[in-house]
């Protein structure tokens, strides 16, 4: 009975709020998806944080700092949304540390040159935006509102990345080669950010029925590719896919096979930076313990003084 009423609300495009009845599987799916999204924002600070001290100008350094700070903010919006489902921030962080919760595999690739800051902003944030714009219409109220806030802030991220790529592409031959190399390394992992193909994505059915997801992985991926090809052409860079070709009949770009063995290998912990990313997060969390303790002790003392 509850379940029928719930589905009727979903079908009528009504948002589900934290205190509303929801099926356990809906709650579980949301916790998994939102926490993975939150962890991605937080772990995603590392590959870019890597270049803050080496940014080539003061302008670039200030922008990168602001961007990384935004990502911390986005992680917090998402943790907040996730907590409304009845799980604590501490549990969420613990699940990340135990490897029970995942984050986007893209952040397990290293950022080797300054051009990678361009590729990450342009492609990784670009792919994230396509996904997040779609998720603004997700059925869970707190998640949807978080996405609206994030989307407002995210487009600066993509533009700053594309600016870096455009600048380097019209720079010296060596700079242009760096930009092309970054595109070569980040292209395939970026389009794999949308997840497995629909035919291999067992959870898609429920997620679409419950309107947690509004578009399938393959539709979002196609949308991103269609948007990005022209941007690469405009700045004279080549997308590393010989099968990439406009298909007038479909009204979409055709593209080549993705390497799913590599995808699953990185998801399962064997990417170039998986261990480093998690170890760094644990270390920062442990080293911050005294700050959390001190804040608590101070709050307690203030209470005693007030009483």
């Amino acid at each position, binding site marked *: 009975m509850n379940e029928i009423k719930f589905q009727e609300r979903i079908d009528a495009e009504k948002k589900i709020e934290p*205190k509303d*009845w929801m099926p356990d599987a809906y709650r579980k799916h949301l916790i998994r998806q939102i926490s993975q999204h939150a962890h991605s924002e937080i772990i995603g600070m590392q590959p870019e944080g890597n270049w803050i001290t080496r940014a080539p100008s003061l302008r670039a350094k200030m922008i990168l700092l602001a961007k990384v*700070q935004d990502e911390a*903010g986005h992680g917090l919006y998402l943790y*907040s949304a996730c907590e409304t489902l009845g799980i604590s921030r501490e549990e969420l962080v*613990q699940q990340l540390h135990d490897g029970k919760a995942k984050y986007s595999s893209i952040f397990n690739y290293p950022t080797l040159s300054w051009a990678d800051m361009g590729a990450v902003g342009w492609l990784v944030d670009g792919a994230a935006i396509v996904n997040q714009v779609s998720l603004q219409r997700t059925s869970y109220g707190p998640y949807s509102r978080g996405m609206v806030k994030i989307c407002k802030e995210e487009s600066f991220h993509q533009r700053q990345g594309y600016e870096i790529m455009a600048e380097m592409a019209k720079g010296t031959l060596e700079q242009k080669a760096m930009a092309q190399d970054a595109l070569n390394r980040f292209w395939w992992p970026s389009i794999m950010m949308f997840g497995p193909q629909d035919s291999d994505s067992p959870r898609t059915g429920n997620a679409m029925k419950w309107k947690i997801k509004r578009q399938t992985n393959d539709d979002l991926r196609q949308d991103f590719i269609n948007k990005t090809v022209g941007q690469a052409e405009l700045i004279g860079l080549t997308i590393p896919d010989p099968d990439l070709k406009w298909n007038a009949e479909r009204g979409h770009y055709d593209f080549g096979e993705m390497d799913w063995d590599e995808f699953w290998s990185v998801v399962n912990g064997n990417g170039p930076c998986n261990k480093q990313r998690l170890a760094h997060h644990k270390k920062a969390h442990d080293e911050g313990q005294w700050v959390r303790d001190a*804040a*608590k002790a*101070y*709050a307690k003392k203030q209470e005693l003084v007030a009483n």
Partner: protein
Amino acid sequence: MAENATVWEVFIQSKNGLAHKHAGNVHADDKVMALENARELYTRRNEGSCIWVVKSEYIISSETEDSEAFFDPSNDKMYRHPTFYTMPEGSKHI
């Protein structure tokens, strides 16, 4: 693992003269930290001229499930709306 910090709800007044509007929440151990965290999280782009924070535990909410019964008393009082009244033809400024 340490227990959760206190959760505070954040309300932001976007411009002098406007009402404060709910923006989200933050974790913090005391009120000064709550205000500072709210500023860092919700007003990085000049979104506010004033912030309120209040411990989430102090917010009392009506139940969405009971909303029909809860708001029922106002449903049948159409005379509270100006459109309920018939004005003489030609009347102005009313």
